[in-house]
């Protein structure tokens, strides 16, 4: 300490006897160094706080009403086909499920729509109590492999364990997410008033994000022949067919199969819905789904009963704010009203007690 002090003294100024000083160590006179930067000093006064509350209230309430009305105008129909109930047509399928059965189990669920669904109708499958957001589940994929990287195709990442390899063969696509892909087939039939079943055409393209379909997911190699591209890999254990046979359409096969892509976009919450098919609007004259009776035909492949899961099919129209969700509208209305109310309360308090904030009683 003392020795280092020699150094500290080194920079001491030298006073010349009888004269001035050699150096001038006067600090610079800049606004920054003197802490005089020009600044705006807002404080919470009645003049700013109260109007803010009223304005927020006045803005939020109409927004909320708009959102609420929009959400209410969306038509949504939901049908649970898990088959936990004895009365459900799918009860048998759900009971007799086995991963290795070769004979698909089908069940048909009749339902009727009270109101016609205008414009495009979106068909979702919904799963409940399905922890797609479990940490180990979320991790269990290899994005390089899905992006068409041939090295990763043959050497899946360790994250995919225990679904990285099956009998020494690399699994494509590897991991628990891919392995557990939703594989029920859902078909929709309109029961004509005269009793004929008309299958409703379901679009299976355009259900995934564009970025996923075109950037994130790519088939390995530039090889248009997927069979050879996936040569040397094996299908995920739970799958019935290999990844290159997911669809016949080359644009929707392999890793870029949209059903697969949609599944791979894991849900944030254990209850979720995923877009399954789109029912395109035919023309302006007839509603996409007129009111009447329908049948949902399910090829029941996907077991959820063991973990108390639920499977649903949702038919829904959409609006500018997406699907049906009244929460935002209600929340906006509530917050807006509370704001307004608070504004009034604060105004009263300010009038009653605000005078305490006078400056007369500052000590000194």
């Amino acid at each position: 300490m003392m020795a280092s002090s020699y150094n500290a003294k080194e920079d001491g100024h030298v006073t010349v006897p009888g004269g001035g000083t050699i150096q001038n160590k006067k600090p610079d006179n800049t606004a920054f160094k003197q802490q005089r930067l020009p600044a705006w000093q807002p404080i919470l006064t009645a003049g700013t706080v109260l109007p803010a509350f009223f304005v927020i209230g006045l803005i939020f309430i109409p927004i909320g009403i708009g959102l609420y009305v929009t959400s209410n105008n969306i038509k949504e129909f939901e049908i649970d086909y898990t088959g936990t109930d004895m009365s459900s047509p799918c009860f048998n399928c759900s009971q007799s499920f086995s991963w290795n059965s070769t004979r698909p189990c089908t069940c048909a669920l009749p339902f009727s729509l009270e109101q016609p669904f205008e414009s495009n109708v979106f068909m979702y499958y919904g799963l409940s109590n399905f922890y797609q957001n479990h940490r180990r589940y979320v991790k269990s994929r290899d994005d390089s492999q899905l992006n068409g990287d041939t090295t990763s195709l043959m050497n899946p990442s360790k994250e995919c364990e225990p679904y990285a390899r099956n009998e020494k063969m690399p699994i494509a696509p590897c991991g628990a997410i891919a392995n557990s892909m939703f594989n029920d087939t859902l078909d929709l039939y309109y029961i004509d008033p005269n009793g004929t079943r008309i299958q409703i055409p379901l679009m299976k393209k355009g259900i995934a994000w564009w970025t996923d379909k075109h950037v994130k997911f790519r088939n390995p190699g530039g090889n248009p022949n997927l069979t050879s591209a996936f040569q040397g890999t094996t299908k995920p254990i739970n799958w019935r067919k290999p990844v290159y046979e997911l669809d016949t359409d080359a644009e929707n096969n392999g890793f870029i199969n949209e059903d697969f892509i949609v599944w791979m976009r894991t849900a944030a919450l254990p209850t979720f819905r995923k877009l399954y098919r789109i029912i395109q609007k035919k023309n302006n004259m007839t509603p996409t789904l007129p009111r009447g009776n329908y049948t949902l035909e399910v090829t029941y492949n996907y077991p959820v009963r063991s973990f108390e899961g639920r499977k649903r099919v949702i038919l829904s129209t959409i609006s500018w704010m997406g699907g049906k969700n009244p929460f935002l509208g209600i929340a906006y209305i509530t917050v807006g009203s509370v704001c307004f109310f608070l504004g009034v309360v604060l105004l009263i308090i300010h009038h009653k007690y605000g005078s305490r904030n006078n400056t007369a009683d500052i000590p000194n």
Partner: protein
Amino acid sequence: MTLFGLDCAKKKERELERKLRANDREHNLSFRYATNAIKTSKYNAFTFLPLNLFEQFQRIANAYFLILLLLQVIPAISSLSWFTTVVPLVLVLSVTAAKDATDDINRHRSDNQVNNRKVTVLMDGELRSEKWMSVQVGDIIKLENNQFVTADLLLLSSSEPLNLVYIETAELDGETNLKVKQALTVTGDMGDKIHSLAAFNGEVRCEPPNNRLDRFTGTLTNAGQKYSLDNNKILLRGCTLRNTEWCFGLVLFGGPETKLMQNCGKTTFKRTSIDRLMNVLVLCIFGFLAFMCMILAIGNRIWEQRWGSEFTAFLPRQDGVDTPFSSFLTFWSYVIILNTVVPISLYVSVEVIRLGNSFYIDWDRKMYHARSDTPAKARTTTLNEELGQIKYIFSDKTGTLTQNIMIFNKCSINGKCYGDVFDYTGQRLEINEHTETVDWSFNPLADHQFSFHDHSLVEAVKLENVEVHSFFRTLALCHTVMAEEKTEGELLYQAQSPDEGALVTAARNFGFVFRSRTPESVTIVEMGKQRSYELLAILDFNNVRKRMSVIVRSPEGKLCLYCKGADTMVYERLDQSCTKLMDVTTEHLNEYAGEGLRTLALAYKDLDEEYFSRWKQRHHEASTALEDREDKLDLLYEEIEKDLVLLGATAIEDKLQDGVPQTIEQLAKADIKIWVLTGDKQETAENIGYSCNMLREEMNDIFIVSANNPDDVRQELRNVLSTMKPGAEEEAIFMPERTLGNKPKVVRDEEVNGEYGLVINGHSLAYALEHSMELLFLRTACLCKTVICCRVTPLQKAQVVELVKKYKQAVTLAIGDGANDVSMIKAAHIGVGISGQEGMQAVLSSDYSFAQFRFLERLLLVHGRWSYLRMCKFLRYFFYKNFTFTFVHFWYAFFCGFSAQTVYDEWFITLYNLVYTALPVLGMSLFDQDVNDMWSFQHPSLYVPGQLNQYFSKTAFFKCALHSVYSSVVLFFIPYAAMYDTVRDDGRDIADYQSFALLAQTCLVITVCIQLCLDMSYWTAVNQFFVWGSLAMYFAVTFSMYSNGTHITFPASFPFIGTARNSLNQPNVWLTILLTSILCVLPVVAYRFLLIQLRPTINDKVMFKVRQAKATPPLPARRARMRRTSSRRSGYAFSHAQGYGDLVTSNHFLRRPAITRSTAFTPLGRTTGFSPMGRSAGYSPTGNALNSRPQEVEVTSLQMYRMVRDSAF
């Protein structure tokens, strides 16, 4: 060795005795004594990395993150990628390492500089120039004038007669007067004869290295003869040789074993109370973290049992992990995820903020002293916020409150008062630097640095007013000052005390020039005519007599006694005829005392020749008496000093530093207690207490404790206490026991009606500080508005500080300028050194230094307050921001199967603290100010919240945490509800994990930004830039990380491709963000607004007032110079205890020819022409500057006297 009959093999690890032989390196090397090289640096190029890392990981936070890092390596636990911890940790480590490296490089540099100084060493029979570091124990070295002493030496011989050397010990103990050391005759006889020195083979046996500066024991054995050695023959490293052409010394201790180095010890690392609080909080946070992880681990166990075991179809368990083990792993996984509650960047940010605020102190022009060209300097960069919490200030007096300059200010001669300036209407004018000063051109011998404003006095002198002449003749004759006249007309006075110098200088300027003295005569120049008075007797000053007289015979042969002394003393001895004059003069004296001036009364008496010769005879007898000499002399003095004729009175101003009373007043308004601890005597200290407005006439009582034994002291203290607060002794004085920690009891603050002052003497203080009495003393002292401790030793100063620190939960500050203040400066929480007055000792051990006491006001009320405010705002906000960030994970755990899944993208977690939120909060903590400096001065009570720890405490922390809980609930559940089962406006997915993560993190970033804006009260452009820049940065980084390019390059690291594009174009996402952020902020606004309305704090009020005033505040009204009407009489002015009368009249004092090569000595920075002895100015211990100093301190006869007298030390 055989000589002592000891075997060197017996030498133990710890040296018990030092043995060495001169000029025998081989022999001395066998003991392996330290060489003269010193090393204060910690690392070298190779050891830096391992050592520094080792040190850094000893800090709890760093070690914690290292453990986290290790946890993350375990795949089963790893819930976050390694980079989330590594990136911040590496950043933190490297910033700290860089700082340590620069510090160490500086130490290396200073070590090198010191080690490479040159010194002449006697080797192999010839003198060689060697580096300091190669000097070894047993070497004989030659020192020349003004050189630093290289090592601890045994003085062998010197160029001066009687083998004396003169040294200055400023660097060791801060005393700047010269001390004398004398070599043994046996070695001194060698002189500078190289061959005999080279042949010298004396053996020294002495004490082992220790740190006692004032003691040394040892023996020298030379040629069979044994000589004892004491401290008087030792030159210590760090001293400087003065007025000695050369000397030879034998090295006894080198480098680290020298007393100087042994003395520096380890400076204790000071920590602020916020630091300590932070440590406690971090521990609490650890506990809380463990608690949260426990809950989540239990949740995991339940989940695994109910659902997880069934979910294995889709998500198989890892090998060998069963339910309990899984919950164990989850615990650790959550420890990793929730690690951000103990934010690693907190410590770095705190350091940065403190550094920034230290720079502001260095940069402040208002704390720059132009005359000495000294800016304020924050020497420690880690204590800033503590400056905003000071409760007690311990101040030195001389050099700190006062300038140690005495100025002849006024006088009263024959009932007429001189010194004030009146305008033509008869109004007294304020004297300032523009007031016209008296022109001294009539007097060629005048000292032109002396200024006086009242022309009438000069007129009176010129008109040969008899009384005025006698008055100044008294001043010119009655003193013990020495004069030196280097060249014709250039007089230099050497005075024992500055007051005496001031008086003689005043007489000099008014035409009564004291020119020279011999033991028998005093020569003065009276109005141009030189006259020599025969000096017949000096009736010397002492503390009891409080006066001094001289008896002289004028050239005309008239005998006269001149006397000056304390007015009370002189008045008792006045002649009846003076009654009328006494009344007038008393009035003047009261007036002077009221202005805080030191007064003296002057009187004279014509003596009868016959009577005097008789008296002289008795005096001679008395002074040669063997018994009761003092008493007999006193009686004689008493006898002759009577029936005096009053001449008048002088008033000397003990010049306060600029602005001291105002500063003290301001600090008192800020509820800071100021205790003055001074080595001065009671009267002087009291006087200063009055003049800086610490003691006031209006005070209810001023107690003086000066008893000489413990019982009396206790009784006096008790009396004081019961006077102030009857029945106080029975009261419980301790704070209720605190649950946490085993701290000693804390004395609570007490209130008392009325204002009291306490003056306590050093010897009483010694008893009061004893264990049995310290509490009584502390209570008594704390009840008083002002406490002055006089005649205290440096150690007592530190003890007082320690006492307050021990029992009071308060932050202390010690301010001083001299080496005697070092202990106190080191003991207090914050030490402030006044630079540019005395040696550098105080400054070097201080935490802050500046040139003037008055800058303390700005340091505390502006810089300290702002630093504290900023630090607290920073901590509150920082904890809020990190808790909010972290708690969201906690809520999410309930929806992801307690699987330790994060809510946010891992990159966001990595960058959140470092990139997205770092700068805005730094900007706030560097620029924020509630009100500007002018308003801070206007309302010193703005300082009080800091003393009471109001801005950041455990309660405030708890409130932060609650606020965070609320925010995190909003931040999780609003997006949750808004996204539940929702889809995009084209029917596709938006409730997926990635979109949800993006939504949550966007809400978070925006919310914390808005919260910051709410907290910030000073919006500069930089702040705006940081806030908007950080938001822009967030979106830019997010978009680029989620872009096609990054994904294609690193598909595995950036899986969030397209998330930003796909969700941020959705109106409902933005509506959710808006709702979330408004909902987070609204309650805060409402709550704060309510607080301002219902319970406004002092800050709120002042800020509101500022808002109303809009414009800049009016300049603080120029306070008029404080005047008091006082009946108090100031004591005798002289600050010394015993006069020099013996010396002046003795024929024995040594004379030395003046050193011819020296040039004229110009006193620096002094207004009067005498050179202060005790506390000299301008000493700089820097090697180069000093050695090249053109002039040397002349050894005056006075100094010689001192040396002879002080040679006993």
